[in-house]
């Protein structure tokens, strides 16, 4: 046996997954409250004790960790045009596993600066202009940022012509220059920036957040948790040497505060008569819906779906839904636990959370009549041919209706313009191993992939 320990320092729970890489099997999992306020080791040690109770004493030969503790990796971005470099900056940050707490476009104002100071980002991503294009905006914004008395590092990934000047303007701050996120109109180049963000996360932020005090057992904290999940999903879709993947996929994690959606798919137009509009999106794309969550963001789900729809799906009266929602807002740790009313409500809420979050993630298509006949205009990713959906999150795991809920990620004739998957197999991550497998994949890709294929529960074809 060769045991490896994988740790996810989450915002609430520190989750441990023990894996035997020789047998390619999960030995056991355990979770304990994250204790980042006092000493992060308290929570970790408690988790280790729980794990030991389950699987006995195990010598771990290696140990890897990811973290979203202490607020995760908080980023603020500023670009020029919202749909172009503004969007590119957002895509780059989300794909790097960040929690984007502020998005700005055009020239920053005094008010913006006040808000930025208050939101206390871990990293600021400054972009704007294609290479050789507009320099005015990014230089103005660099000047403005320089006046802020805050010590967050700034990643500059805009018009290369202005990069040096930005560095000079920001003298005294930690500045990292990266290639432009949009070097030419409509061309994305976000990987170098993501790599830089991850490096800063490792070298600087982990320490600043008191996460570096973790026991000697740990080699290092490798990445933010969402980046680990994205890595796991890429591996599951594409496979690696010696082990094939399951093909293009969409993954949804419905949490208490947010809903994360990942798509590993090309998503470009299928037909000749379709014109693509807007920024091309990355093959591995992550979005986060901050207003869609089962407890802290429960109101966002009701607002997006409508009270009547939640009432219809749950079979509860609108008044009762209202009452229960108010109650859950105050008692965010409440779970159905057999209560039939809460089970019905959570079913409706989770279904709507998935529908809303995947709709926002997926691209759209519109019909236009031209002199040449019917033409289609697509923006965002076309996921209609994606055949695999991976779901996780408490509301999907602790229910018998997982597949029914997951089917709300699919294309619906009621929303014909939304390019969601037409038909897909559903895989359920019942043991929360996705982040752990992302970590494991850095060193043992084949093993991580085989374990995922084994551990994810297959739910057949959702129609």
């Amino acid at each position: 046996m060769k045991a490896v320990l994988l740790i996810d320092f989450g915002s609430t729970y520190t989750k441990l997954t023990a894996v035997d890489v020789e047998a390619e099997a999960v030995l056991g999992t355990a979770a304990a409250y994250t204790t980042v306020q006092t000493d992060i080791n308290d929570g970790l040690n408690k988790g280790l004790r729980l794990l030991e109770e389950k699987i006995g004493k195990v010598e771990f030969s290696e140990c890897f960790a990811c973290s979203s503790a202490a607020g995760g990796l908080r980023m603020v971005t500023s670009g020029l045009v919202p749909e172009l470099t503004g969007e590119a900056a957002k895509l780059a940050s989300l794909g790097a596993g960040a929690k984007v707490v502020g998005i700005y476009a055009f020239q920053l104002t005094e008010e913006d600066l006040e808000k930025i100071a208050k939101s206390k980002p871990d990293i600021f991503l400054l972009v704007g202009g294609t290479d050789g294009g507009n320099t005015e905006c990014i230089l103005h914004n660099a000047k403005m940022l320089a006046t802020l008395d805050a010590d967050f590092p700034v990643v500059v990934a805009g018009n290369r012509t202005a990069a040096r000047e930005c560095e000079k303007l920001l003298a005294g701050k930690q500045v990292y220059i990266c290639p432009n996120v949009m070097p030419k109109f409509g061309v994305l180049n976000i990987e170098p920036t993501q790599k830089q963000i991850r490096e800063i996360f490792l070298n600087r932020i982990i320490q600043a957040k008191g996460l570096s005090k973790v026991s000697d057992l740990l080699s290092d904290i490798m990445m933010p948790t969402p980046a680990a999940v994205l890595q796991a999903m890429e591996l599951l879709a594409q496979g690696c040497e010696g082990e094939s993947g399951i093909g293009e996929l969409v993954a949804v994690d419905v949490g208490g505060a947010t809903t994360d959606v990942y798509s590993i798919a090309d998503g470009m137009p299928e037909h000749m008569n379709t014109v693509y509009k807007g920024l091309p999106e990355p093959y591995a794309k992550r979005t986060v819906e901050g207003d869609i969550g089962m407890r802290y963001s429960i109101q966002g789900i009701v607002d997006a779906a409508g009270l009547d729809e939640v009432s219809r799906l749950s079979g509860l009266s609108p008044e009762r839904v209202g009452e229960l929602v108010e109650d859950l807002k105050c008692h965010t740790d409440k779970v159905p636990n057999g209560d039939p009313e809460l089970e019905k409500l959570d079913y409706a809420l989770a279904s709507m959370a998935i529908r809303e979050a995947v709709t926002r993630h997926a691209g759209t298509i519109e019909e236009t009549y031209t002199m040449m006949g019917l033409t289609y205009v697509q923006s965002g990713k076309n996921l209609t041919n994606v055949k695999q959906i991976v779901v996780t999150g408490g509301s999907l795991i602790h229910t018998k209706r997982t597949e029914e809920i997951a089917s709300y990620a699919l294309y619906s004739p009621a929303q014909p313009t939304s390019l969601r998957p037409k038909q897909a197999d559903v895989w359920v991550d019942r043991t929360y191993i996705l982040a752990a497998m992302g970590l494991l994949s850095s060193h043992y890709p084949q093993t991580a992939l085989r374990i995922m294929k084994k551990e994810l529960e297959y739910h057949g074809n959702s129609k």
Partner: protein
Amino acid sequence: MQNREKKVLVIGVIGADVHAVGNKILYHAFTEAGFEVVNLGVMVSQEEYIAAAIESNADAIVVSSLYGQGELDCRGLRQKCDEAGLKGIPLVVGGNIVIGKQTFEDVEKRFKDMGFDRAFPPGTAPETTIEALRELLHMDGETA
């Protein structure tokens, strides 16, 4: 990568117009003539021209229209450019920009009243447009 010694043009076919051939010819002709060209392709909205022109710090916007609805599609573009901070950016339009029996002088006058700097009738050779752009962008004597 863009070379800022070159003048930057944003080009595309406006509205619900899918005529792609002329657009490709213009792209090659302008590039050949030494311009840096941001080509938005077909079915371009006014907002897309403006967004691309802002990011690329364009020197001019060249609008094509082949399907006869150009006048409707082009209305308000100048005002939107002003609003977006692209004050005074040269706007050029060409193609089958209107339908029906009209003298081109009338058509040209209407487009100039809408804020376009130049309007070209059907069958204009790319060289003519290139010449006009050189003049508009004060490139006399330069190769491009």
